């Protein structure tokens, strides 16, 4: 590879911003930002996240060797769009515009995203924060893509669904039963988490981070805690690292089991659903017994963990692993020997490998289509470097592949748990975090994929700005692509196999 195509070379050519850990942050002027856009068109660099502060946009990038944050000051409130080069950034730019009033020049899509016209203010996080004038916008007042082509009809679904799931609007353009286009509209569960975090202490903000997406509460807490620790130049004690990993793997197992059951239930195969949910319940009860909360919410905190694992708790978890494995493997056997079920999942909702790479989609969505990124391996974080585990990768990209990635990951997580419990370090589980200024970035692997959190602390250790980027940001757009050419009735199955977070995405 030429020197020019390396992220490191580009980063070295920009002005470094001190106090950003553990990866560098650099400031790019207008010309450099434009050069970055050109480089993104030519290279395979992955755009992991795009977020903002009132007068600056940040973008997290990664190539094979380097991870870096590039910032572009935009006091005039405008910056050249990266979304026109990298479609994964389009929704992020729209969100930045809604929250900060910063405009992406040459943007591919000028519609609002998170702001549905019903907030009392516009640009709530920006410099130009102002009360909204005029009446709230009607819910239907949104420029949906027009139906183009003969014989197509439109099927609006949601945001309120018949099942107990989160709200999101899906608009299908269908030719009979075949989907010609799917357009998503999200933002219905916007809670203003980023704005609520500002000015709070790290411990207070950690409680908010734990609530970004309830099913990934451990992953989001962990990403936030690690970002704060990086910003304050401290680390968690070794025992805390191990306990965090125990909780993260328990969360992964519980959610993968829930997804497995729900996917089968969407194909109306209730047997696996009932048994997978029973197994999930075992995991949650064990988590409740060991950590005092079934979902382990607020158990991972900046500086360590909020509760220790007793010897009795460790024994409970070991019994859980021993009980889980045969029952889980028997269920996989049922799944794999059920032609009527496989007929629904095989070749349904295929995601293409080049799109998965283009959008840097992580988790089972990426791994089922040939992108084997796992934040536990790359960039890696303790204690995983001393543990033995495999990251499964398949290339089919269909619902069946996403189910199989989950199977393999459950098996690997059970192995990881056994290793962790056999070699639990002793010692303290929490250190106090010094209140100093700094910026930190952390990437951890949640059950959906890589959770990225960026935190800027002020001199007293309060949060100046925090951006938790859920993996769903990079997966939701791929769902629109995966459903093309499938039938409308298969959408629930595809959607469940993605299981993107609404809450984590809407912030």
């Amino acid at each position, binding site marked *: 590879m030429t020197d020019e195509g390396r992220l490191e070379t580009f980063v070295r050519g920009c002005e470094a911003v001190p106090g950003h850990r553990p990866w560098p942050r650099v400031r790019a002027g207008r010309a450099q930002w434009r050069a970055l856009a050109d480089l993104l068109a030519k290279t395979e660099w992955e755009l992991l996240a795009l977020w903002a502060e009132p007068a600056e946009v940040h973008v997290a990038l990664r190539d094979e060797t380097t991870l870096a944050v590039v910032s572009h000051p935009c006091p005039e409130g405008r910056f050249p769009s990266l979304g026109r080069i990298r479609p994964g950034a389009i929704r992020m730019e729209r969100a930045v515009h809604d929250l900060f009033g910063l405009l992406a020049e040459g943007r591919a899509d000028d519609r609002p995203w998170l702001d549905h016209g019903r907030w009392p203010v516009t640009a709530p996080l920006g410099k130009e924060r102002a009360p909204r004038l005029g009446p709230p916008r009607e819910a239907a007042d949104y420029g949906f893509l027009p139906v183009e082509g003969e014989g197509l009809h*439109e099927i609006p*679904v949601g945001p309120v669904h*018949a099942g107990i799931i989160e709200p999101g609007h899906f608009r299908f353009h269908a030719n009979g039963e075949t989907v010609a286009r799917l357009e998503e509209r999200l933002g219905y569960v916007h809670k203003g988490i980023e704005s609520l975090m500002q000015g709070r202490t790290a411990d207070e903000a950690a409680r908010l981070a734990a609530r970004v997406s309830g099913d990934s509460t451990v992953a989001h807490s962990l990403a936030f805690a690690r970002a704060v620790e990086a910003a304050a130049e401290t680390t968690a004690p070794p025992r805390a690292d191990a306990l965090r990993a125990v909780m993260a793997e328990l969360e992964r197992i519980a959610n993968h089991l829930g997804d497995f059951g729900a996917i089968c239930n*969407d194909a109306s195969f209730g047997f696996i659903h*009932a*048994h997978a949910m029973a197994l999930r319940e075992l995991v949650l009860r064990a988590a409740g017994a060991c950590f005092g909360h079934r979902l382990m919410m607020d158990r991972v905190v900046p500086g360590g963990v909020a509760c220790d694992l007793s010897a009795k708790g460790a024994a409970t978890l070991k019994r859980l692993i021993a009980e889980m494995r045969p029952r889980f493997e028997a269920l996989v056997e049922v799944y794999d020997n059920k032609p009527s079920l496989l007929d*629904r999942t095989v070749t349904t909702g295929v995601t293409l490998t080049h799109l998965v790479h283009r959008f840097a989609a992580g988790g089972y969505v990426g791994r089922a289509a040939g992108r084997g990124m796992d934040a536990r391996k790359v960039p890696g974080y303790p204690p995983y470097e001393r543990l033995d585990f495999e990251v499964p990768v398949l290339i089919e990209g269909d619902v069946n592949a996403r189910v199989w990635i989950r199977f393999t990951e459950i098996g690997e997580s059970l192995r990881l748990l056994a290793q962790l419990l056999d070699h639990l370090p002793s010692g303290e589980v929490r250190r106090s975090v010094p209140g100093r200024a700094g910026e930190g970035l952390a990437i951890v692997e949640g059950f959906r994929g890589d959770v990225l959190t960026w935190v800027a602390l002020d001199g007293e250790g309060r949060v100046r700005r925090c951006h938790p980027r859920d993996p769903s940001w990079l997966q939701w757009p791929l769902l629109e692509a995966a459903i093309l050419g499938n039938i409308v*009735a298969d959408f629930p199955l595809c959607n469940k196999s993605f299981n993107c977070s609404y809450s984590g995405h809407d912030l």
Partner: protein
Amino acid sequence: MLSFLLQLVQLLLVLLLAPLLTGFVRTLKARLVGRRGPSPAQPYRDLWRLLRKEAVVAENASWVFRSAPSLVFALSWLAAALVPTFALDLPLLRAADLIALVAILGSARFLQALAGMDVGTSFGGIGSSREMMIASLAEPAILLVIFTISLFIHSTMLPHIAGFVLAGEVGIRVSLGLALIALIMVAIAETGRIPVDNPATHLELTMVHEAMVLEYSGRHLALIEAGQMVRLLFFVSLIAAIFAPWGIAEASTAEGVGLVGIGLALYLGKVFAGGLLLALFETGIAKMRVFRVSEFLAGALLLSLLATIFLYVSQSL
């Protein structure tokens, strides 16, 4: 006089038994997957709850939407009352012609599909279009089954058919076996069971029957649900009356009261055996893709065609 009384008993029996059958299947299915499940009496409570609730009707709903539930329910009830269940000598059975039964059910489905499209929501339209696709394939299959049976028995009247089979004039025939399988497949499609439709789903995009009735609530919904339950009982009774009529009392004289009692007990046994088989089948299979339904029903059509051909082949030997 007695026959009128028995007819009244049958009318009420199918109405009262239908929710129990549906509840029985639900409970069994829950037990089969390892859940405790609701009591088999739950459908009665559900219907009672719905009946007491206010019916919310869309503003742009026409009289079609409002009148469809009662009509659909009445037609389903009528169809179920026409099938000989435990006695043959009933006044209404003179109308129990198989072709008439298909017409009655077809009318009910037509009304339901109209009502599904009446409000103009996309789900109603999807449901109606899918229901009509299924119906257009199921009706030829069921008519061909009737054709095969009538070739045997020279009648399409259910009491004659049941009497003929009861008299032992047909042995085990390949044709009848094929017709039975075809009828079961059609019944699964017509009653909206897995693998064609899933009556328990919450996913609006995959629904067929449930999508059509998504806009209904309160007493309207109660009538539709009850109609659907009666429909399930109708198909179980129909299959029992044609292929296993044993025990149906032929005469309802004063001496025949004991026979009627036996017929009643046997009928209940047949219904719950049908429910058990349905629960076992539904637990063991996933729902098929919407477009596989046409292949499934084409299979039913093919089997009933084969049944006819086998009949001619065996007769010419």
